[in-house]
């Protein structure tokens, strides 16, 4: 199927690229001129991004011709590069694409251009934006999947004053919650991807980022003992049905975002569990359920948090904890992000990449909400609430950052999801699941 679609994409890419370049008369002066910029953001996100770029436009006099490419920007960009008409600057949601483009020499080495600005980012981020020791990109936006969301009122009902910091504390808090008659966890297991995100976090926290990347490339086998210990660790929580809202069966019919509603219900129902795991996008679901939900641990107007969604409910998160024996991995984060790369080295694109590497643009979008920057220099006061501040802080302080492993598994991604669902159905069956997974990975990845 792919080869048949590609020519259309190439033509489309050429046309779009042609539009982009025709609007960009190259100017020799530092000021003025224009720069073409591609990213995936559209509608609300596009408006926020445009707002973030407006100081750059007014200060430099350079016009930014922004063009939204949606979620298939990788394909569109690859086609435009192959057709010889790429944009000046692009934000890509995938470090793999950055590596490929750098290898092909299609993007500009930014090491010297950003020499004063690369220190704005932690080494985990600069490593992810580098190829062969040279810096090629700037991580403008980050997404954090290291988040377990909890209903503070439910924690209060069990007298848990501070959220768990280690995996052991999480298991302990789960039993405290149960003693108080609160079901600890709502597990989203109707489909495979949330379980995959969960398992990947456990693997990252137990085995570390290096092993994670090796497993992703299948240079570590799925029958490895590190995989076994991730399964046994996860089984401490999900292997006990009474830890889960509705038990195993209830979890298997628990779709995303219904699993979020079990912890942060709409007006008229009570929460059925205290915690739910998924990435930072859960916040949108919660506030969508009721505008009453306040971020943090105090309800609206300073009242204490209530379980009743129509009174003063709250929502908060804690970082996915690592077992205390693996505390070195506690700041390793699974997530996603958008990295800015320069495809055409013009004075305008250099000025734009410098602006994107600085804190000003990111601070504007942060203030508008729905945004987290891995940039250290973005002041925490730019974030409108404690939850988004916490999400950004975790990104800034990440010791290492990995992308979703399942997305890189090609043909056997769906098998992997099914295997992880099978694990939830029967958590004692780990060794046979591991053997199946390794077989499928070998067949799917061809090695």
């Amino acid at each position: 199927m792919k080869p048949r679609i590609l020519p259309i994409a190439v033509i489309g890419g050429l046309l779009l690229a042609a539009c982009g370049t025709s609007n960009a008369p190259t100017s020799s002066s530092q000021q003025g001129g224009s720069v073409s910029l591609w990213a995936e953001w559209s509608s609300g996100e596009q408006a926020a991004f445009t707002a973030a770029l407006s100081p750059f436009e007014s200060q430099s006099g350079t016009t930014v011709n922004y063009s939204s490419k949606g979620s298939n920007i990788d394909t569109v960009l690859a086609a435009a590069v192959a057709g010889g008409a790429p944009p000046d600057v692009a934000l890509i949601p995938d470090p793999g694409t950055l590596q490929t483009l750098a290898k092909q020499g299609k993007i500009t080495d930014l090491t010297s251009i950003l020499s004063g600005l690369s220190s704005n980012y932690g080494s985990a981020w600069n490593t992810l934006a580098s190829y062969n020791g040279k810096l090629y990109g700037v991580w403008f936006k980050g997404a954090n999947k290291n988040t377990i969301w909890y209903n503070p009122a439910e924690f209060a009902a069990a007298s848990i004053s501070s959220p768990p910091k280690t995996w052991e504390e999480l298991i302990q808090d789960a039993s405290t919650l149960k003693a108080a008659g609160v079901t600890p966890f709502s597990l989203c297991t109707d489909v495979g991807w949330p379980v995959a995100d969960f398992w990947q976090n456990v693997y990252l926290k137990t085995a570390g980022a290096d092993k994670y990347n090796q497993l992703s490339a299948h240079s570590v086998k799925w029958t490895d003992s590190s995989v076994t210990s991730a399964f046994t660790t996860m089984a401490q929580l999900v292997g006990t049905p009474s830890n889960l809202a509705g038990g195993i069966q209830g979890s298997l019919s628990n779709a995303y975002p219904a699993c979020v509603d079990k912890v942060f219900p709409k007006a008229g129902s009570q929460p059925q569990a205290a915690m739910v795991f998924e990435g930072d996008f859960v916040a949108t679901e919660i506030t969508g359920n009721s505008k009453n939900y306040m971020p943090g641990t105090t309800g609206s107007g300073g009242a204490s948090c209530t379980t009743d969604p129509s009174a003063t409910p709250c929502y908060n998160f804690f970082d996915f904890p690592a077992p205390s024996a693996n505390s070195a991995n506690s700041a390793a984060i699974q997530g996603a992000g958008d990295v800015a790369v320069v495809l055409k080295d013009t004075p305008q694109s250099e000025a734009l990449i410098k602006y994107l590497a600085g804190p000003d643009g990111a601070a504007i979008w942060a203030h508008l909400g729905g945004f987290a920057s891995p940039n250290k220099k973005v002041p925490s006061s730019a974030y409108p609430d404690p939850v988004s501040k916490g999400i950004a802080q975790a990104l800034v302080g990440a010791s290492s950052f990995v992308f979703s492993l399942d997305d890189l598994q090609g043909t056997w991604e769906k098998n992997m999801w099914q295997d992880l669902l099978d694990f939830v159905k029967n958590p004692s069956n780990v060794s046979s699941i591991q053997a199946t997974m390794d077989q499928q990975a070998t067949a799917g990845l061809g090695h």
Partner: protein
Amino acid sequence: MAARSLRRGHPLSRSVGVSTSAGPLATARVVPVGRKPAGGGRRDQVGSLLFLAPAAIWLLAITIYPVIATFRNSVFDETATSYVGLNNYKAIFSTASILVNFRNNVIWVVLFPFIVTFLGLLFAVLTERIRWSTAFKTIIFMPIVFSATASALIWRTIFDLDPHVGMVNAAVQTASDWVNPPGLYPVNTSAGQTVAALASSGLSPGASGSLQSASTAAAGDTVELGLIGINAATLQVVGAQTAAAPSASSGAISGLVYRDFSPSHPTVRGQLFPDEVGLPGLRLTLLRSDGTGAGSTTTDQHGDFNFGNVGSGSFRVQIDAKNFGSGFTGIFWLGSQSVTPTSHLSQTAQALLSVPLVDLAMIVAYLWMWAGFAMVVIGAGLTSLNRELLEAGRVDGATETQIFRRITMPLLAPVLVVVLVTMIINVLKIFDIILNMAPGSSQGDASTLALAMYNDGFTGGIHSGLSSALAVILFLLVIPAMVSNLRRIRG
């Protein structure tokens, strides 16, 4: 044919023809008319081919070419670039998770066409005999106008696990709660909760879902029993009040059942704190050492109880199982649990022999969709039946059952077979209802060939070889049914 019969019917026209052909003028006039089809044949063929061309090209492009390409891709690898022989077919027949698709197709083909034809026949025969039959037929037929996706979503909600959402479970719950009402402190065992897990201090699991005091007591003793896992909402419902340590009274066994969770000491068990509450409304039984009951009572608002004048001997206090009855909490109709016992079999045998409940739920939904169609087709067959035969049967004294079995059924057989075969083809390629009705967690166990073909070929990681091989197999399976239907139509 029309012209011949016209000539035959009107002898005059023939005689006119004969008379005109006699003269040379007439011949000259007739010949061009006769020559036209002979001389212009090739040109006409070209013309008709020209007219056919758009349709033929269209057919080639969207039917013939894809069929050939699918056959070709089925012996190529996942990106359709290198030849792999029959490896894709071997993989299909040796992988348990793919064999599941065949099993599900078999379940569908065995159950659905026969049931839907039977239901269609039943409705068609019955609606013939009632007033308001048009209204009834309309209602039965209506679901077919909904898209399969919409129907699947409707039925997914109807079969939802939560009785507050799913209509089927709500109905079962209403009936069940009437017979077997839930207790004050329900423990949802199907959600993995256990009564034993409630025992916190002074208690051990007793007979059949009850709890009993861990140590024995005699007259004049006090007993403190702590339970955990009781949430704040339940406490509000039962009106629990602060617990106080029980005081001993002579000749009696008195005691307290309390919630062993102190907000000020959330992790300490087995100790009565001032902020802990008693559990009211619990039904208790006093057990003699031989296990027989010596009396029963219920705890008060503070969780206190008292068995007076117990006499001599040692006793245990039992918290009855009915306190913890959860009532009906829902059947997971859309789950992949098998209705046939296969847990003792090997993985491959399980894949081939189990019948997941979700398959049956989906078949019910699909019957709802298609019974109306079967009814209408069979109903049309019924109206064209020769009534005289039925009359003759009645005159000869046949009962209605005999008439139905010996006259109606044989006469209707061709129609029934058409419905049956059409439905077999229909369910061989069943797809959308599974994609939309089976939850992700049972999708793998509910998947059919058509769905597997789609999933392997078009979603996530794409394997066009495997997907094409599945398509080829599906194609071969549909051919017999297709040929039989075509013959029937032609005949």
